[in-house]
């Protein structure tokens, strides 16, 4: 019983997160302006980190935690670099 409850809530959570990733990917591909694409990419990073944490709970291992941490950090670096590029036209001054 408890295994079924956990299994189906994990499956439903993964479906919801996949839907969110699809929305973010649409905004990356079709965003009217550059800042919309950057925002969509940031959302995609965060949703991927949440999806990896959910997958870690599903498999019962803590291996995926490090991957989620790296994705969260890289998302920050990528968004900051692209915001700086939009502001100045170059990343490193």
């Amino acid at each position, binding site marked *: 019983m408890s295994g079924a*409850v956990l299994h189906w809530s994990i499956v439903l959570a993964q479906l919801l997160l996949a839907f969110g990733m699809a929305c973010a990917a649409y905004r990356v591909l079709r965003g009217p302006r550059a800042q919309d694409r950057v925002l969509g990419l940031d959302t995609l990073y965060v949703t991927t980190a949440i999806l990896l944490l959910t997958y870690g709970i599903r498999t019962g291992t803590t291996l995926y935690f490090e991957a989620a941490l790296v994705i969260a950090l890289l998302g920050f670096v990528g968004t900051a670099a692209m915001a700086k590029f939009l502001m100045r036209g170059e990343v490193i001054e």
Partner: protein
Amino acid sequence: MTDDSPLGLVTAVVTGSLLLLGAGLAATGALGLLRLGSFYERLHATTLGTTLGMGSVLIASMFFFSVLQTRPVIHELVITVVMMVTTPISLMLLVRAALYRDRREGSREVPPAP
């Protein structure tokens, strides 16, 4: 997870509902990213999944692994700190860049520069 897992029903229900809450908030934020009109409105929607959605899933993960390994597992707090620190910084940089670009194009949606 199989049906003969050693976890109790309380653990499964708490973990599952926290996961569903987090994933639902993230999906709602992404739907707002899809549906809302202007860039500055979309920005508000995505922070829903970044803060509360991520937080719920991290609490679910901490609770689940603490019960599974019968010892406190709190290394998810690292991700919490990272997200809490970095999300406002990156989004503020992005908004400043967008405001700069809109003002430079003479857009009427944003207030003029002081």
